[in-house]
């Protein structure tokens, strides 16, 4: 079980690996598309990497609801519970 801070840090690392964005720019209120400029292909790569890192399953139909980094952290945290 990871804390929300740990999940955020892990996601920031995945986003950095995929896009080169600085990990500290990946904040809870940031939108993946509008703020971080992440396209759908990168988003799917981030989702698959997050599944492996956190040992969860993020269904495809759920991905469209993950608008912000915070949405993803909340979903992963809930899925781990």
């Amino acid at each position, binding site marked *: 079980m990871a804390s929300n801070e740990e999940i955020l840090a892990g996601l920031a690392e995945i986003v950095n690996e995929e896009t*080169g964005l600085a990990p500290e720019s990946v904040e809870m209120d940031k939108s993946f598309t509008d703020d971080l400029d992440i396209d759908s292909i990168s988003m*799917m*790569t981030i989702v*698959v990497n997050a599944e492996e890192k956190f040992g969860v399953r993020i269904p495809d139909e759920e991905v469209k609801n993950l608008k912000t980094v915070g949405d993803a952290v909340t979903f992963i945290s809930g899925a781990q519970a």
Partner: protein
Amino acid sequence: MARKVVITGLGATTPIGGDVPTMWKNALKGVSGARTIEADWVQEYDLPVTFAAQITVPASEVLSRVEAKRMDPSTQFAVIAAREAWRDSGLEEIDHDRFAVAFATGIGGVWTLLDAWDTLRAKGPRRVLPMTVPMLMPNGPAAAVSLDLGARAGAHTPVSACASGTEALHQGLELIRSGKADVVMCGGAEAAIHPMPIAAFASMHALSRRNDDPEHASRPYDVGRDGFVMGEGAGALLIEAEEHALARGARIYGELAGTSVTADAYHITAPDPGGLGATRALKAAMFDARVQPSDIGHVNAHATSTPVGDKPEYIALKTALGSHIDNVAVSATKSQTGHLLGASGAVEAVMTVLSVYERKLPVTINLENQDPEIPLDIVTTERTLPAGDLVALSNSFGFGGHNAVIVVRSV
């Protein structure tokens, strides 16, 4: 009267240098790019061939990590070479709707394809990443170059095995002559030094097995030649309509005076022993360039160092050029670079252009006992050609019976 087309930019990443100046310095000196492959998979799969000619400057040292992650190695090499050619051309302001790409590959994203298959088997379909398709597709290099440089007049991918790189120049010339583009980034890229292609080329006995002496394995025209050496990398040539180059005061390396493509229709892999398809290609290219056999001063030969391939090319040259062949200086640069497959024609075109521009010829290494059945004048030591008009040919032939020839003329 067809539009004249000139070459104004050159780029390369190769087993004898990560850019054009380094490659050219080495090509004139004569070095081997072949080395034992330092990878666990050589022993793991007990490969019959344990060496290759790998690029000297890893793509990771040139591209950013994020850029590289989204590209198959073949596309990485293409982008590196094309960026160098673009910078070299001095082009800045350009009508992007009149700018095309013709960037070839023989095999395409074979590393991506096979890695994804391994991932699917080990971890399941969910782990096969969404960038897999754009990374493995053979038009990946052309598409990436188009995207990188903003070339919107079409991005083309000639695929004709080891003739691909030369066919890209053929296509580029046609695009400009027909008025569909004013500027074309031509080239070829290949990244197939992977255990599967090595096993496959070895199984058809195309590769040299000189495992204990890689640097002397690629030896075109030598009686001891026993196959080609796998190479990798990319070459890029920025070509443009002459009036376009003159209007911007560009440095012009030479004229792409003519090209041709023919097919043997003889055998899927074996060259026609009489070199008929290659002869027709040579004659057609000279006709296209409006030059005579007696105009030719230099040939950058295909010459892969296979026992069966080198001689038909000689027969074709002798048939097409007649007795003038005795006055032609021939370089077999695969002796240094290995065989870059779909990139070879592009890299050799870069060398041919520089030969015409600087009047210096690249060296053929490892020629110790010249095959008496191939009495060509092979350049083995530094050689400079006299001033005056100079016309050079570069040949490429590919499995499938593909023959492609370009003609480069001094300006």
